[in-house]
């Protein structure tokens, strides 16, 4: 009965759809509620932000690599931040470091990565018409946009942007008189981040709700592609950790502007005692890192999820250990919340507490290693196709391993005391979360570009881009470990004033800077490829990678509602590649077992009986609901 009435509703709705007015330019491209358009908005914003963010890093690398260099040529961009002698202003150096971190972590690798691909892939891969709430989704992007504009604006004010590091530790950030970068720039940082958190929250509840409520018939959680599992867990992490940053930021705003003492106690500044008593700067660090640590997994998990998908597709093999992959992602997501204090081994925490956090931190190596081995065993004896996306995914696994190994070193509190706040830490997290996630993002763009824009990206340029970037990143960050072990602290403007740094590693620092400029330059190959393919790329076919997931069953340029007719039902997991007996080396998720008797395993034959029931259970199609 239910099915019959639902079907008549479809017919009615289909008729109604013919009468939908074409939407105006503003509703189609600007304030769009379509998840695909919002995803593209996030992608373009993310690309623009990454150009800005990486440029900032090149600027401070010039200072670090070539401390005596005349930087007058940057004056058209930086104005009086280049002083009369042609040197970078030391205050602005700190601002550059801070904004590079903030932009890359939040605006590129959180919004640009998860915003793009969660939005794009969740409805397409679970088989939904759109996100649960298109309106909140649109709001999410525009809150992000507003946050972006404020953060961007803060780069251009007279006192400069925030410069207390992306972690904005008080008391430096809480006292506007402490530093130029703690004045208006810091206020704008906090406002921008508060808006950013709202955006994340709106996005996150939408992602979670869509995955729970809008999976198509047959798409049980045990048939979800690993991408969706990753996006789902990422959204849960964000949902729980970002509000804590919101609280921390609000308390900091009160300390800065209204005279409270949540983070301040017994401080002298410029020879004058402040009246604040009772607060604790360590408290801020606890609150910050309760977000800050899950944040690195918010950045990394989506990249790992997409890598799972791309590696399985291009190895033409089922992912090795599907359930182990899910379990390890859950393990990582859970552990993410109970390891935050490993960022605080040297900030005056009880050493006993330190050893507990050390223990918990090192446990993360287990699920991480499970993932790394599963990627490698998926590749093992696979029928590998080296598409650019595949190369970037393999590159991700490489960075994940080489960066992860140093994580074991830093996770030990005894070793961390030696290496804390040196370039060793910088090298570690840039490899394991920065470069790895960026490779996930790039792999995702290369892989899903045909679905996003209906055209293929140029493969040759993709290969060039991959090799230049892959080599470049190792050239930047591998030597940086040595600089760190030698004791060079991070965030220092120059190393020319200390005996132990004056005469050593100047050449190494210059080399790193050259490698950074090289890597940055290589990214223009990608930008060119992206723009050129957007306009003149080869037209894509419906399923160019011969992939199993549902997004490739949509038309080449999916319209409103993604599938023109019924949403396909799902009968199998997404990794039936090279199944013995099958005529093709892939069987999409929407192919029922009854059509593939030649390749079914015994237990799969038993599932044929369920197919009728699955097909009948078509009760959450958004087009059949009143809207």
């Amino acid at each position, binding site marked *: 009965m239910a099915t019959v009435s639902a079907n008549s509703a479809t017919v009615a709705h289909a008729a109604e759809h013919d009468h939908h007015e074409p939407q105006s330019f503003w509703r189609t491209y600007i304030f769009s509620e379509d998840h695909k358009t919002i995803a593209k908005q996030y992608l373009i914003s993310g690309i623009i932000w990454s150009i800005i963010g990486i440029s900032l890093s090149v600027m401070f690398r010039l200072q670090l690599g070539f401390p005596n260099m005349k930087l007058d040529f940057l004056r058209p961009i930086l104005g009086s931040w280049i002083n009369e002698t042609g040197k970078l202003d030391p205050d602005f150096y700190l601002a550059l470091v801070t904004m590079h971190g903030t932009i890359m972590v939040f605006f590129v690798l959180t919004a640009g990565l998860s915003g793009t691909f969660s939005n794009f892939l969740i409805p397409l891969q679970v088989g939904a018409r759109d996100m649960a709430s298109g309106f909140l989704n649109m709001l999410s992007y525009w809150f992000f946009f507003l946050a972006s504009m404020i953060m961007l604006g803060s780069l251009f004010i007279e006192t400069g942007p925030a410069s207390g590091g992306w972690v904005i530790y008080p008391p430096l950030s809480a006292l506007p008189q402490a530093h130029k970068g703690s004045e208006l720039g810091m206020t704008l940082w906090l406002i921008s981040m508060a808006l950013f958190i709202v955006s994340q929250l709106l996005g996150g509840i939408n992602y979670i709700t869509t995955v*729970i409520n809008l999976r198509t018939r*047959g798409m049980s959680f045990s048939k979800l592609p690993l991408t969706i599992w990753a996006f789902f867990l990422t959204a849960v992490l964000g949902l729980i950790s*970002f*509000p804590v940053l919101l*609280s921390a930021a609000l*308390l900091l705003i009160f300390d800065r502007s209204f005279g409270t003492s*949540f983070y301040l106690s017994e401080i002298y500044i410029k020879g004058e005692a402040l009246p604040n008593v*009772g607060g604790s700067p360590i408290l801020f660090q606890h609150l910050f890192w309760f977000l800050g640590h899950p944040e690195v997994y918010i950045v990394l998990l989506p990249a790992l999820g997409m890598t799972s998908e791309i590696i399985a597709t291009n190895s033409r093999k089922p992912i090795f250990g599907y359930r182990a992959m899910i379990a390890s992602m859950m393990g990582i997501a859970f552990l993410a919340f109970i390891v935050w204090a490993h960022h605080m081994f040297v900030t005056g925490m009880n050493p006993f507490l330190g050893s507990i956090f050390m223990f918990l931190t090192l446990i993360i190596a287990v699920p991480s290693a499970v993932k790394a081995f599963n990627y490698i065993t998926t590749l093992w004896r696979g029928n590998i196709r080296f598409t650019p996306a595949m190369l970037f995914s393999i590159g991700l696994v490489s960075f994940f391993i080489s960066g992860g190994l140093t994580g074991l070193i830093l996770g030990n509190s005894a070793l961390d005391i030696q290496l804390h706040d040196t370039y060793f830490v910088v090298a570690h997290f840039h490899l394991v979360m920065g470069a790895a996630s960026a490779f996930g993002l790039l792999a995702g763009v290369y892989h899903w570009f045909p679905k996003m824009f209906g055209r293929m990206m140029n493969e040759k340029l993709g290969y060039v881009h991959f090799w230049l970037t892959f080599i470049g990143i190792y050239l930047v960050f591998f030597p940086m470990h040595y600089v760190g072990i030698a004791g060079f602290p991070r965030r220092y403007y120059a190393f020319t004033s200390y005996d132990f740094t004056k005469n050593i590693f100047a050449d190494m620092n210059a080399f790193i800077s050259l490698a950074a400029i090289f890597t940055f330059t290589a990214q223009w190959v990608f930008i060119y490829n992206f723009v050129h393919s957007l306009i003149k790329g080869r037209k894509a076919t419906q399923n160019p990678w011969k992939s199993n997931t549902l997004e490739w069953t949509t038309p080449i340029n999916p319209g409103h509602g993604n599938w023109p007719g019924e949403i396909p039902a799902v009968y199998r997991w997404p990794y039936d590649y090279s199944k013995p007996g099958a005529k093709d080396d892939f069987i999409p998720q929407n192919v029922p077992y009854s059509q593939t008797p030649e390749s079914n395993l015994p237990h799969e034959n038993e599932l044929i009986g369920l197919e009728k029931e699955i097909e009948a259970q078509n*009760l959450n199609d958004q087009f059949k609901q009143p809207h």
Partner: protein
Amino acid sequence: MAATVTHDTLTTDSDQVFDKKTWMGGVEPMKVSYGKLMMWFFLISDTFTFSALLVTYGLIRYSYPAWDPAVFGEVFKFSNLYWPSPEHVYNSVPFLHGVNLPLIFVGIMTFILIFSSVTMVLAVEAGHRMDQADVEKYMLWTILGGIAFLGSQAWEWSHFIHGTETGTTINELVNGQTIQRTIFGANLVENQYGPPAFADLFFFITGFHGTHVFSGVVLNVLIFYRAATGLYARRGHYEMVEKVGLYWHFVDLVWVFVFTFFYLV
């Protein structure tokens, strides 16, 4: 858009009734619409916002000693050396000037807020019955309860800000000299009742909660208006009342914690 379809249940070998298809996709597995699910997830998120603030409270609170008669004297007096006992700070009731009524007023406030949760439940229940008049009636009571709570909080704040008649004399070190000064009431910088941090936390956390109550009242007014104009009757369900109700109960629940921390321990 709740899927209002009953599912066939499959009986498994162990005679346990279990709907195999609940999580198979194509349905809303928890039989909850997306909007209500989103409200739940928002509330989980907001729980963490408040938890962070209450953790802050706990950490700062326990960095100060409590009042100990053996150390600080038999008679309790306000001092910034130790955390004050709440029954000495919150002991006033409007129109009963000079009468020592510890925690009576905040008790009344709490009662009002919890009572408004009861009327909210009744409004939701009336919505299930599609009884527009009852929804309107109980929503109105809920709104009144919310406004009464906010009004009481305004009085409580203003009393806290103005302080006692005698004030508290504190010793201050100014330019190397100890100076005695009497302060009245509390603000974000100084506090006659105890350490300034006590007032900072009181204003911030009750203020943050009050902001939540205020947004709750605004939402309630909106829902009342839409119910009164018959929008939900035309729509065929009063689910919006339920969603806002969830938020309202959450705000009440948070108050129970805030109340416990500030007034009871």
